């Protein structure tokens, strides 16, 4: 089932930025990363899907419900965490969760159970009477995520959820999101931290100027449609032998060379990379490290938005 169906969505602000015929489909088993430069329209899209903003034109459905005509059912299905989410500093943790449980109309015994789950999920089960203001930013973010999940949403909309978090808190957040995805919650997450997205997302969607950005086919070299794979290797022994070998190898492009490190682009995919490695070894070159994982998200981002891959 499609949790998000967005077709030709437009939203124009007075300043001009917004969405311009953006389309997206997100299935219930997906964890999709939304990536793009500042002002690309990521927050606008998430705000529309969470019913905070009305769409200009086009279709925007969440869990089969139109965000414009059925916002209450959409809200019941969605958990939304904005980029800079505030908390009520002068409330106790338990009171904070109770308030949002009531705001989502949870009735007993579901209400108490949901609050208990949220306390456990946030790791704050042993301090429910503490004031929210005494929590660090990382703990607040965990509390906010737990609050967002109180009503068991089918879809999570997360707008830059890792902003301002320290590395440990980011790791915890990543683990929580992976777990939620495994539990069947569909997630759309916008972030500039590409390594985090690369780690957890099942798919990446690029957006710029409010439009879908078609990514060059994975592994395709710039200006070419033929697939390529990027290989990073370290070797021992005289460099001359390797140079000689590379001169005679077809479809090889040297991207970077530093002492014993070599980064090349090879025509083909992983099978060709494997054959290439076998030939290297057969030629008597000692390879101490060989990594042929293709383009990482940072490279794909550079390709999508005009920068050069490393």
């Amino acid at each position: 089932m499609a949790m998000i169906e967005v077709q030709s969505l437009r939203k124009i602000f007075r300043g001009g930025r917004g969405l311009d015929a953006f389309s997206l489909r997100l299935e219930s088993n997906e964890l999709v990363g939304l990536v793009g430069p500042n002002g690309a329209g990521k927050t606008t899209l998430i705000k529309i899907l969470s019913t905070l903003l009305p769409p200009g034109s086009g279709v925007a459905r969440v869990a089969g419900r139109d965000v414009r005509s059925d916002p209450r059912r959409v809200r019941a299905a969605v958990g939304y965490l904005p980029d800079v989410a505030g908390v009520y500093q002068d409330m106790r943790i338990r009171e904070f969760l109770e308030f949002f449980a009531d705001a989502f109309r949870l009735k007993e015994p579901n209400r108490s159970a949901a609050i208990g789950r949220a306390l456990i999920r946030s790791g704050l089960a042993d301090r429910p009477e503490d004031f929210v203001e005494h929590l660090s930013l990382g703990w607040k973010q965990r509390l906010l995520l737990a609050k967002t999940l109180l009503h068991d949403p089918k879809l999570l909309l997360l707008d830059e959820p890792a902003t301002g978090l320290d590395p440990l808190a980011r790791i915890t957040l990543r683990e929580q999101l992976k777990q939620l995805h495994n539990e069947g919650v569909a997630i759309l997450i916008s972030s500039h931290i590409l390594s985090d997205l690369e780690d957890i997302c099942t798919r990446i969607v690029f957006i710029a100027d409010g439009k879908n950005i078609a990514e060059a086919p994975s592994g395709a070299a710039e200006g070419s449609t033929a697939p390529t794979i990027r290989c990073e290797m370290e070797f021992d022994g005289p460099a001359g032998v390797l140079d000689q070998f590379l001169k005679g190898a077809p479809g090889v492009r040297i991207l970077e060379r530093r002492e014993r490190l070599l980064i090349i682009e090879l025509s083909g995919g992983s099978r060709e990379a494997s054959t290439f490695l076998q030939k290297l070894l057969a030629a008597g070159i000692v390879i101490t490290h060989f990594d042929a994982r293709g383009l990482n998200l940072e490279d794909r981002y550079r390709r999508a938005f005009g920068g050069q891959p490393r």
Partner: protein
Amino acid sequence: MMRLVTNPMILKELRQRLREGRAWLLPTLYLLVLAGTVLFAYYAAMDPEMGGGQREVQGADIGEVIFLTVVITQLVVLLLMAPVFSAGSLTIEKEQRTFAGLLTSLLTAPQIWWGKFVAALMYLLLLLFSALPLLTLAIAFGGVDPMQLFKAVGSTILVLASICTLGLWSSSTFRRSVHSTAACYGFVLVLSIVTAVVFGIMVSHWESHNAMARAEGPPAYVQAPLFLNPFYPLLSMLGGGSFGQFSYPVSSWLLFTAIGCLAAAFAMRSIQRSGEQI
């Protein structure tokens, strides 16, 4: 109907307000001001020279002076406080970035509005009712009957409720508390002072053309600007004495009710559309 009472916003708002440092400070200051006013009114009433004659001072005279002085003073003080409690209540959610959480919950715009309104008004009512013992002092002196007290409290509540709705409207419109509160004070100033000035101009014009009719007081069309004055419902209901000429309390109630309803409707619409502000 039950949801009006069980609205989670009300509990949250009251809890937060009563945890603020000013929760006990304001009532204390408020009661000190009113106690000072009572003392002043008492000694003023006891001073025969201030009454303009040498007649013996009656208990009823003291009671009447204390009552009028306190009800007017408390309305002045509460009019100054109402914008503080109402005009910042939605903007603070925007400033603290908590508004998105409310708007994406299952709370409706009317529920959010109602929670904020009740919380703002309840705090003002707490102040109002805490001063009741001072007002009943006037009844003990005589000259004031309990019905007058009831009318004074009722009209004060009506005016405060209207000002709170104006405060919430400006709070729903602006992004920052300072702008919203300034706008609400602007409304209070316009209603309190501009209407009085317009009335003053109209009445002097009317008096210059109707010298014979002065004793009956100005007609409704001359008083009309005052119907919007926050003091008019109070003074017109108390009637008698120098306020006897203000004889259209119902018109004033209706206008204040209409202002409140309009401001509430605009505020709810503004809350529904405030996604762009957060």
